[in-house]
C-alpha cells in the first residue's frame, strides 16, 4: 500500500515554538495600532507643545509611531520562520537591530519632511534620542514576550504531566475484582486462571508503557479485547460486546489507551449496574481518510448522572487525540434515549514503520 508518510513530529518531541507573538494576524495589527495611538496621546499630553498645538502634535506623533510599528510588525512577520530557527540570543539581537534601524530611518524621513515645524532639536540629537528609546523599549518588550512564553510553556507541560498521571491510573475496583476472579479460577479452572494472569499482566504493561503516546489501532484494539476477556470472566453472560470494526485500518496511528478506557467506562457505568446485563457496541468506520469509532452502552435508569471518572477519562482521550491531530480530531459524548454514546473521529495516518513489524 502506498500511503503518504506521516507528517507528524516524532513522538515526545515537538518543535519548540518561538517566543515572539505572531505579528501576521489582523488582531495583532489592531493591537499595535491601539498601543501606538495611546502612546501618541500620552506623549502629546505630556509635551503640551504650545507652538504646534495639541491636535497637530497628536497627529504627527501618531503618524510617526504607526510608521515604525507597522513596518516593524510587517518585517517580523516576514522573518518569523527565519527567526524561529535561530537561538534566543541571536534572534533577539536581530530583532533589536531591525527595530532600531527602522526607527532611525523613519526618524530621518520625518526630520527631512518637516524639521522646521515639528522639532526644535538638532538633526543628530533627534536620531540618537529616538534610537536610544527604541533600543530600551524593544529590549523590554522582548524580555516580556520571552517571560510570558516561558510561563505558558510551563503551564502546558504541567497540564501534560497531569494527563499522564491520570492515564497511569487503573481503577482499583478493577484490579481487586480481577484478583478475586483469579483466586476463584485457581481452584476451579487453573488453565483459565493462568490465562487471566497473563491478560492482567498485558493490561498493566499497556497501562505503564512508555511508548503509549502513539501505537497502531490494531494494538489498541488488542488491549481493549484483553480488557473485555478479563471482565467477561467476572461478569459472565451479563456482558456482551458487539465488535463491528472490520473496516478499520489496522495500521492507523492512535494515542495509546484511546479505546480501552471507553470500553472500561461502558462496562463500569452501563453494564455492571444492570442485573440482567447488556450489550456494548463498538462500531468502526473508515471513510474519506477519516476514522470514526463509536462506543455505545445502555444507560441504567438509576445512573443518569455522568460520573466524575467518566468525564476525566473522556477529557483525557480528547486532549491526547487533539495533541496528535489538532482540530481534525473530535470527541463527542452524550445520552440518546436510553443509551450513552461516545464518538471519536480522527484522520487516518499510517503507523511509522519501526524495528518491529
Amino acid at each position, binding site marked *: 500500500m502506498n500511503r503518504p508518510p506521516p507528517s507528524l513530529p516524532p513522538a515526545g518531541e515537538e518543535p519548540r515554538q518561538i517566543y515572539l507573538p505572531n505579528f501576521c494576524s489582523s488582531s495583532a495589527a489592531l493591537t499595535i495600532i491601539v498601543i501606538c495611538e495611546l502612546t501618541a496621546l500620552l506623549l502629546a499630553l505630556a509635551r503640551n507643545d504650545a507652538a504646534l498645538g495639541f491636535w497637530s502634535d497628536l497627529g504627527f506623533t501618531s503618524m510617526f509611531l504607526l510608521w515604525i510599528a507597522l513596518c516593524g510588525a510587517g518585517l517580523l512577520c516576514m522573518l518569523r520562520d527565519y527567526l524561529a530557527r535561530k537561538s534566543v540570543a541571536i534572534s533577539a539581537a536581530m530583532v533589536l537591530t531591525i527595530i532600531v534601524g527602522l526607527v532611525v530611518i523613519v526618524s530621518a524621513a520625518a526630520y527631512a519632511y518637516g524639521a522646521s515645524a515639528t522639532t526644535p532639536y538638532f538633526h543628530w540629537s533627534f536620531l540618537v534620542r529616538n534610537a536610544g528609546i527604541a533600543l530600551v523599549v524593544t529590549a523590554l518588550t522582548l524580555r516580556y514576550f520571552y517571560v510570558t512564553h516561558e510561563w505558558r510553556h510551563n503551564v502546558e507541560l504541567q497540564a501534560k504531566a497531569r494527563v499522564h498521571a491520570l492515564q497511569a491510573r487503573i481503577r*482499583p*475496583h478493577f*484490579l*481487586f*475484582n480481577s*484478583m*478475586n*476472579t*483469579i*483466586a*476463584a*479460577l485457581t*481452584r*476451579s479452572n487453573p488453565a483459565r486462571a493462568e490465562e487471566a494472569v497473563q491478560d492482567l499482566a498485558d493490561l498493566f504493561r499497556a497501562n505503564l508503557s512508555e511508548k503509549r503516546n502513539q501505537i497502531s489501532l490494531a494494538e489498541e484494539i488488542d488491549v481493549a479485547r484483553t480488557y473485555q476477556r478479563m471482565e467477561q*470472566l*467476572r*461478569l*459472565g453472560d*451479563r456482558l456482551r460486546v458487539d465488535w463491528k470494526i472490520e473496516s478499520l485500518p489496522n495500521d492507523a496511528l492512535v494515542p495509546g489507551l484511546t479505546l480501552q478506557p471507553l470500553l472500561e467506562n461502558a462496562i463500569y457505568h452501563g453494564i*455492571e*449496574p*444492570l*442485573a440482567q446485563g447488556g450489550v456494548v457496541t463498538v462500531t468502526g468506520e473508515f471513510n474519506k481518510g477519516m476514522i470514526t469509532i463509536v462506543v455505545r452502552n445502555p444507560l*441504567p435508569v*438509576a445512573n443518569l448522572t455522568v460520573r466524575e471518572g467518566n468525564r476525566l477519562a473522556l477529557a483525557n482521550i480528547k486532549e491526547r487525540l487533539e495533541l496528535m491531530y489538532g482540530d481534525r480530531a473530535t470527541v463527542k459524548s452524550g445520552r440518546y434515549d436510553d443509551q450513552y454514546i461516545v464518538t471519536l473521529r480522527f484522520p487516518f495516518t499510517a503507523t511509522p514503520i519501526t524495528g518491529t513489524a
Partner: protein
Amino acid sequence: MSLRVVIVDDEPPARERLRSMLAEIGDFEVAGVAGNGEEAIDLVDRLTPDVVLLDVRMPGIDGLEVARHLATLPAPPAVIFTTAFDEYALQAFESEAVAYLLKPIRAEKLRAALAKAERLSRTQLQQVAAATNVPAQRTHIGVRGRDGLRLIPIEEVFCFQADQKYTTVKHLKGEDLIEDSLKTLEEEFTANFLRIHRNALVNTKYLERIARDASGQHFVHLRGLPDALEVSRRMAGDLKDRFRI
C-alpha cells in the same frame, strides 16, 4: 448444628470461590445463593439463614441497602459484607456490621468472621441490625406482609401519609402500611419528596396541580392518584412558587 449461610454476589466466580471456601472450612451449609439484591432479600426472607455473605457493590439494590431491608426482618441474619474496593462504604459500616471482608478473601479471615457471627445471639444481632444505619438513600421501600418482604421502588411511590401509628405508602400498585416514621422518610428522601402537610409527604415527580375549595383549603392533585391531598396553609404558597402549579 451447622450454620446456614446465604451467599450474595453478582459475580459468578466470587460466589463460586466463597462456596468452595465454605466447603473447606466445613460446619456450614450453603442454604442459597443470590446474584442481586432483590433475589437476596427474597431468599433470606424465605430461608431465614443464620449468616449472609453480602457483596457491597451490586446492580440494582446494593449490599448496603439489602442490609437495611434485612434488618427489618423478624429474625435478621448476621451480615458479613464482602467488597473489593469501596472506601466510602467501608467507613459507613465499619462499626456496625458483624464483619467485612476484603476480596480476594483470606480463608482465616472468613473463618474468624463466621466464628464471630456464630457467637452472636439473635438479640445481639437485632441490635447490630438496628445500628446499621447507612445514611444513603434507599431505592426501594420494604413492606412486610403475609407473603414476606416485598419491595416497592421509590419512583413508584406517590406519597406517604401518617396515621396514628403507621405510615401508609400509596404507590402505583396500591397501598401498604410501613413502620418508618414520616420524619425519617422525609430526611431520607428529601431530594424527591416534599412535605405538604403535617401528615403527608409527596413525590414531586407526580405533582400535577394545586386547587382550592370554597373554604380556602388547598389541595394537591398527583398524576395517577384519584384522591387529592390536603396542603397546609404554610406550604401552599411555597408549593405554588416552586412548581408554578
